[in-house]
């Protein structure tokens, strides 16, 4: 799967676009210009909708803002006329700021709330454009900006928009294939795992909202130039529907799919006159069909790779010899300390005054009946739950509460009872998500594929392949994660956690659903990890595994410590035997 092969469809589409004006007339060139301008907006919005999964249905508002900003500045009806390129820059600024404002609620609330916010914003922008007559010309509108020669001709302007569209394709593809793109998808499909990997949701989403708003602002300025005259009627909600639906029809997490969909949806109404009136109705029907029948969109239809059969009879062979290279040099002398932790859910005390010490270099088993507070304890350590009393420290340094995204930086990684993986991404991409905090390059460097971005990618890829080899999944690196067996997902989660180079690894029932052989492999893997100096906290129900590999065992019952000691001591502890193990 070479880079060349991936780029081929894009090259084909833009080459076809280049020769279009030579083989057709001005009318079709204008339509193609419109498609290119739409793509400038859609390609960036794709990161918000397709990658981060945020349902921004009212993005036409940013187009409107950009169009008015550019037109007003160039026309000079509030201040002296401005150069058209400066005005486009201002449009990007206005669009970007608006994008961040509209995106703010998405940091706390997803889906319907965010969709509503963008819808409400779109309504308000149109109302303001209508009412603020001195500046916007109200319902009558105003003249759009004119480009300087040679961009003022139909052909020249088309080439300009096309070049910009190609540039946008390139930069969004760069982001999509960077740790930022993978982190966005992680936020969409496995946000809890993303936070545990240290991905900062506000910062990342803020960046893409800013970017998508700015590109929409620029697209707005170009749209105003193309229309040559703008009024609020030019920015109907139908346009927003087109942008949004193009991404969903194209397929989430794809770039080629939405590009094809944008071109098709822009051209569709031109094929038959009656379609113009019914076009939005048709888009809506398409959306319903896609949601109900083919959630993967065009991209899923084009994904031939995932239909190739994978070997059915596979077994996991772990390679612990690569662990020194994976965990190199990231050791802790301090234990994780829990003191007097109390946590209730409603009237139930899930943890009732628990002290716990997890030493580096040891495997610490945490066992107990269902509901005894094992997973809850793990969630307290990893920062998802805020205890009512007690402290969680790493040595003497307190670990911040309600901040699971800080744990990776402290060297604390975890897995989940129900594997939290990104089904649509490959196994390799899933593991690379775990190393998001190891990257050095910024979002802008990734946009432009600058050296630090390329270095990050090479490093993450190398580390992820190493981690996959360690847990015995190297042969499945390029397979979509949702095609794996359940037991393989458990090892995949461990590989992702290893990417943090953890000083402490928290495992939540890693042996659940595994076969006897697999449990044996898991045991030797965990043991080997702890021998490298990493402390392991192991929540498990398989008593055999616990007693085989643990250095220390704590038994919980009703949120309290029932017993603690070495496996040999626990095995003969009378209360533990009667309450939990059975004789």
């Amino acid at each position, binding site marked *: 799967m070479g880079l060349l092969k991936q780029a081929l469809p894009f090259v084909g589409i833009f080459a076809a676009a280049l020769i279009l004006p030579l083989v057709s007339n001005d009318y079709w060139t204008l339509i193609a210009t419109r498609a290119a301008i739409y793509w400038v907006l859609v390609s960036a919005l794709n990161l918000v909708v397709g990658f981060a999964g945020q*349902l921004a*249905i009212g993005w036409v508002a940013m187009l409107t803002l950009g169009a008015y900003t550019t037109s007003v500045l160039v026309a000079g009806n509030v201040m002296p006329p401005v150069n058209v390129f400066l005005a486009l820059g201002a449009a990007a600024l206005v669009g970007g700021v608006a994008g961040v*404002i509209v995106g*703010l*609620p998405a940091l*706390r*609330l*997803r*889906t*319907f*709330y965010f*969709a*509503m*916010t963008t*819808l*409400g*914003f779109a*309504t*308000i922008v149109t*109302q*303001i454009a209508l*009412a*603020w007559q001195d500046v916007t010309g109200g319902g009558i509108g105003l003249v759009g900006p004119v480009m300087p020669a040679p961009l003022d001709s139909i052909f020249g302007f088309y080439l300009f928009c096309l070049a910009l569209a190609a540039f946008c394709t390139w930069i969004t593809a760069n982001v999509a294939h960077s740790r930022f793109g993978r982190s966005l998808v992680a936020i969409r499909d496995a*946000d*809890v795992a993303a936070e545990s990997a240290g991905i900062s949701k506000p910062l990342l989403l803020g960046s893409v909202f800013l970017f998508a708003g700015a590109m929409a602002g620029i697209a707005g300025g170009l749209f105003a130039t193309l229309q040559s005259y703008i009024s609020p009627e030019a920015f109907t*909600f139908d346009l927003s*529907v087109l942008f949004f639906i193009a991404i*969903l029809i194209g397929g989430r997490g794809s770039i080629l799919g939405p590009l094809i969909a944008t071109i098709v949806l822009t051209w569709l109404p031109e094929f038959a006159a009656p379609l113009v*009136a*019914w076009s*939005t*109705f048709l*888009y*809506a*029907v398409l*959306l*319903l069909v896609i*949601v*109900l029948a083919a*959630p993967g969109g065009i991209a899923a239809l084009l994904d031939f790779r995932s239909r190739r059969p994978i070997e059915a009879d596979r077994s996991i062979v772990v390679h612990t010899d690569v662990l020194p290279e994976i965990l190199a040099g990231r050791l802790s002398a301090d234990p994780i300390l829990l003191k007097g932790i109390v946590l209730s*859910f409603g009237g139930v005390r899930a943890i009732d005054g628990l002290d716990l010490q997890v030493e580096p270099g040891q495997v610490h088993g945490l066992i107990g009946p269902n509901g005894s507070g094992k*997973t809850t304890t793990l*969630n307290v350590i990893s920062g*998802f*739950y805020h205890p009512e009393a007690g402290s969680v420290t790493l040595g003497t340094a307190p670990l911040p509460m309600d901040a699971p995204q800080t744990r990776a930086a402290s060297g604390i990684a975890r897995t*989940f009872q129900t594997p939290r993986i990104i089904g649509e991404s490959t196994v390799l991409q899933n593991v690379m998500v775990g190393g998001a905090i190891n990257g050095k390059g910024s979002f802008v460097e990734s946009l432009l594929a600058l050296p630090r971005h390329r270095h990050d990618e090479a490093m993450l890829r190398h580390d992820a392949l190493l981690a996959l080899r360690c847990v015995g999944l190297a042969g499945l690196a390029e397979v979509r994660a949702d095609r794996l067996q359940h037991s393989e997902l458990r090892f995949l989660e461990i590989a992702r956690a290893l990417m943090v180079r953890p000083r402490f690894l928290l495992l939540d029932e890693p042996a659940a659903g595994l076969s006897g052989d697999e449990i044996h492999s898991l045991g030797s893997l965990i043991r080997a990890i702890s021998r490298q100096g990493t402390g392991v906290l192991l929540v498990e129900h398989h008593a055999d595994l616990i007693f085989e590999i643990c250095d220390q065992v704590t038994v919980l019952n009703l949120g309290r410590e029932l017993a603690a000691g070495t496996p040999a001591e626990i095995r003969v502890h009378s209360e533990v035997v009667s309450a939990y193990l059975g004789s």
Partner: protein
Amino acid sequence: MLTAILLSGLAVGAVYALIGVTYNVMFSASRVMSFTAGQLGMLGGVLGAAFIGVLGLPAIAGFVLTLAACAAIGVLTEIIAVRPVLKSLEQHLYVLSTLALALMIQQFTAITWSTEPQPFPSLFGLQGGGVGDEKFWLPILACAAVVVGLEFLYRRTLIGRAFLAIAEDNFAARALGLPERNLRMASYALAGVIGGLAGFASGQLFLAFFANGAMLNFLGFVPVALGGLGNNRGAIIGGLALGIFQQSANFLFGGVFASVAVFSVFIIVLLLAPQGLFGAPAQRRV
């Protein structure tokens, strides 16, 4: 001036509150927020104008037909856009499916009815824009009727209690043998009636206009966000407060300011109290 602000504020607020209740009734039965809530309000106005104004039916016949049609649209929403995506609620596909259906309703109305606002006939001949104008009183009356009706339904009738049981705990209700699917369809029919009533009662206030759907979608959702999902009392109080706030801003500072103010309040409330002012705490994620 104060009377005018209060009266028009309560009138539009009553409509927002009713659309908020429409959202809630659908949400309680299915845990789905549906974009069709505002469209039902729009249809109430357009269908009322079509039956009474265009076809010349008696007002009472037009009223009954409008509500029946909206109930049917409610049931249709459940069948087309809600039931198929209930299995995977956590993927939030309902946002897209109900959005698609809402757009279809809106575009169909725009093309077959009109893209311009059309007049809604007077029902009792009380017009003139003053304090006695029925366009202010009808939404307020409709809102009061719905409050009383829902209270009666939920407190006094078996089916109302079954609605509450499903809203409280879907699985337990099914385990008790409640016909969950039929109750859900009934809830969507009820939502259709409430949304249709809101649109019919506000026909003279907002006119019969296809774009009212999107407007009501947003302004009807604000009280839900304020009051918390599924909280009808919160939605009614939030709706009326929103109406008075919006109309005060409108009278005192103008329409642009009112729009911006409403949107700002919405964003600020979402940031400060994501579960609404009367809402329940967030669910556990891990």
